[in-house]
């Protein structure tokens, strides 16, 4: 029997507000434990939450960017459970009336377009962090993160493969970064992803029993964890076992998912409307204002790049995956760079160098102007494409203009025919044996002669002229 997987994702995205959701404490990451706390976010007796308006706006902005319905009335609810990192003993979240209703995002997987439905997007507060001592039994609680606004995006079970799941998360990450509501940083946990996974025989309409997979903090782990889990469930069914509804953790070291708790032990969260917060009543004009402020989104930009800049789809995909990269590209083109060449340089050398240094394009020393300057040197024949790679890396390291680097290093291409001819003649006079063999039919030796000339000129000889001269003289 053939099985298919049914996957729904829950994405938690920390919002980029300056302050926490219900108090004025900073949301900055990485400070000393419990230095960004106040009576409100540590749940002192008698304190009350006050809603951060920016957080509401960010969630609505996300909803509008993902085709969600935005109801005019929304409410906050308490999710009750005990845990040391949850200072009030309940999390303020949303239950029956989330800020955003149904929506969707489009993804492309191996050339196929897929529409993935969103069930809802709601706003809630993050919990703190439990820290367990390396030695001994002690545990500590850091509440700096408690009360950081968190947006939960819930997808429909529309995803069928781990690749689709990854593309979906990538797309959402690109969107939240474009619209400036979340930094999308998966290492630091500002974007987290849980998956509900079940399998069923192909053609079956009923859903199988699902497992919830947590702790997948990179695209690679999402793909690996889901692939593992799908295989595990299919094998279990084939072996005649029953799938248990449970929460499973991805174990990176072992490369497997492991059972954390079963449904039987699961909490009854006793949701009820939070009496400390008034219902959120939005005005249509305000929603329209938020909509009006949304930047061009990745999908629209991608289409425009294909049609306006005549780029291949893959190039457009890459360039629009990050707003900063798309902006960089467009600046270079505006300065006169050829769109294909600019794209090729970004895809190739630039990406390689940035990856090696783990840097983002916005931190790159090469500005669009520097690249365009170098491209014009290639066009004019001042440097060859090969030399350009060396120049590019020098620009990357020093931030100097290409012309300056070429000047300093003496990298100007040698196009003076008589000068090159003298060198060619010299090489040929030293290689009577090779000439003999070449004329005898060993065509590969052409490469040897070119190589010798290049070596002699330190790579600066114009390759076109070298080839022409050699061909003439070896007739």
């Amino acid at each position: 029997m053939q099985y298919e997987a049914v996957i729904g994702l829950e994405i938690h995205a920390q919002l980029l507000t300056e302050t926490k959701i219900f108090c004025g404490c900073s949301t900055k990451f990485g400070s000393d434990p419990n230095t960004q706390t106040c009576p409100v976010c540590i749940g002192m007796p008698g304190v009350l939450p006050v809603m951060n308006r920016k957080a509401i706006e960010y969630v609505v902005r996300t909803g509008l960017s993902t085709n969600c319905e935005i109801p005019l009335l929304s409410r906050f609810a308490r999710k009750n459970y005990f845990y040391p990192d949850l200072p009030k003993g309940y999390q303020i979240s949303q239950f029956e009336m989330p800020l955003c209703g149904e929506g969707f995002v489009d993804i492309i997987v191996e050339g196929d377009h897929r529409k993935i439905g969103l069930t809802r997007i709601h706003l809630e507060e993050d919990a703190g962090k439990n820290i367990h001592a390396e030695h001994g039994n002690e545990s500590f609680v850091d509440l700096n993160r408690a009360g950081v606004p968190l947006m939960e995006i819930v997808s429909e079970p529309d995803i069928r493969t781990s690749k689709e799941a990854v593309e979906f998360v990538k797309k959402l990450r690109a969107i939240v970064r474009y619209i400036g509501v979340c930094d999308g940083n998966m290492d630091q946990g500002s974007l987290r992803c849980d998956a509900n996974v079940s399998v069923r025989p192909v053609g079956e309409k009923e859903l199988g029993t699902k497992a919830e997979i947590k702790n997948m903090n990179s695209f690679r782990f999402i793909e690996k964890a889901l692939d593992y889990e799908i295989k595990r469930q299919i094998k279990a069914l084939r072996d005649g076992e029953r799938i248990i509804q449970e929460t499973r953790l991805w174990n990176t070291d072992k490369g497997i998912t492991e059972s954390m708790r079963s449904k039987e032990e699961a909490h009854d969260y006793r949701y009820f409307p939070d009496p400390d917060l008034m219902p959120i009543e939005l005005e249509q004009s305000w929603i329209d204002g938020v909509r009006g402020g949304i930047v061009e989104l990745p999908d629209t930009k991608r289409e425009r790049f294909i049609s306006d800049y005549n780029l291949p789809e893959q190039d457009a995909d890459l360039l629009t995956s990050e707003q900063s990269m798309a902006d960089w590209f467009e600046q270079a083109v505006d300065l006169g760079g050829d769109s294909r060449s600019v794209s090729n340089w970004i895809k190739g050398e630039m990406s390689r160098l940035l990856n090696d240094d783990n840097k983002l394009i916005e931190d790159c020393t090469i500005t669009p102007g520097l690249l365009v300057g170098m491209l014009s040197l290639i066009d004019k024949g001042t440097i060859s494409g090969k030399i350009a790679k060396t120049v590019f890396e020098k620009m990357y390291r020093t931030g100097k203009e290409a012309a300056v680097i070429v000047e300093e290093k003496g990298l100007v291409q040698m196009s003076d025919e008589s000068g090159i001819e003298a060198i060619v003649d010299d090489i040929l006079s030293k290689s009577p044996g090779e000439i003999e063999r070449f004329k005898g039919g060993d065509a590969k030796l052409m490469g040897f002669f070119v190589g010798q000339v290049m070596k002699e000129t330190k790579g600066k000889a114009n390759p076109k002229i070298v080839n022409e001269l050699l061909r003439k003289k070896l007739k």
Partner: protein
Amino acid sequence: MELYRLGIDEARTALDKGEISPVDLTKAVLDRIEAVDEKVRSYVTVAGERALRQAADAEILLKEGKKQTLLGIPLAIKDNICTKGVKTTCSSKILENFVPPYESTVTKRLNDQGYILTGKTNLDEFAMGSSTENSAFGLTKNPWDFERIPGGSSGGSAAAVAADECMAALGSDTGGSIRQPAAFCGVVGLKPTYGRVPRYGLVAFASSLDQIGPLTKNVKDSAVLMNIISGHDIYDSTSADVPVPDFTSLLGQDIKGMKIGVPAEYFIEGVDSEVQASVKEAIQKMESLGAVPVEISLPHTEYATATYYILATSEASSNLARYDGVKYGLRVEGDDLIDMYMKTREAGFGAEVKRRIILGTYSLSSGYYDAYYKKAQQARTLIVQDFEKAFESVDVIVTPTTPTPAFRAGEKTDDPLQMYLSDIFTISVNLAGAPAISVPCGYTSNNLPVGLQIIGKHFDEASVLKTAYAFEQATEWHKRKPEL
């Protein structure tokens, strides 16, 4: 003159004229506490030294000509309202040594007017109760009869005012916790409209019902305190951003032609005959002042107690989850995390608090939510509508504050339902969110005070206070004092 007998308004006049000094006044009140509190036990914490320091400061400021409504006036605060640097226990073992690092909005507003904190008054643990017998720190006595309870949960505040252990006090009222003890102790107690007074710093029992209000020796003092504590607070989203009138300005206006609603459902069998008689006499008195009694109906009254005990306990079960031994308050070590939670809460909470947490947890549980919590919300809406409809034809509503006068200590402790029924006349008002006052309107043959409840429209405390003041000034009841 016995300085401790003074109320706020009288003390202000005497202080401003230089007839008395803040230090003398504060000493007089502290001496009074020293003399009688061993018997009455109104206070959980007496902040004597702090009060004297404040008084000395006030004395200087007063001489410098500083004008503040409460400058140099000693007030008591219920021990579930956070006072920075002064222990706030909620009369619970779980917060026995809890010293708030922040100030509640109401006490901040009192501070801004120069008040002197005498100390923190006893209550039923976490304000859950009607007799103050649920305190972990001892029984408060009714100053009129030490065999009897002062009411609750603001029993300490009411007793302290009645026994002249402060000029006035703040309490909190979730289902009658200001008005019922005010009635039992023969003082004035006002529960403002929900949202009128900020709750920031009031340790939550039932967030959608809790409201802070004054307990005072006369109606005018309640108006004075309301002027100070009312108004929107950026730290409380449920506090209403509506204008605050000068509540003292309507005092003294006559009540001629005012329509006084008398709900049939509040004059029923089971109400003590002396209480009934006192309240009826009070209505006649108001009629003689020109008011027009109108018979009205609040048909869903009978559902109020059940509705209240579902909603209040549901909210409480969540509000009290933070007392888990992790961050502050009591911790009893256990074998593991769950064991620590259980041992801490087992040792830290009293029986009534546990009962209510269990009831509320049950009402919110999956499978029961619709039958209990949701149903109760619907019933609450009907009760709100009862009042809206009644107020279409009347200006205020009058009822007995309580069905009986103060009962004996221990009389109802074994029967929670009987205890809950002592609030039947006050609970609906919290569910409706309306303002209501209790003023003394008579004494039983045993010399126990009887309270008259005057209920107003939302944010119309001014009419409530005006009516109460007119009644008070036409009677002598508020002048009686218990023999101590």
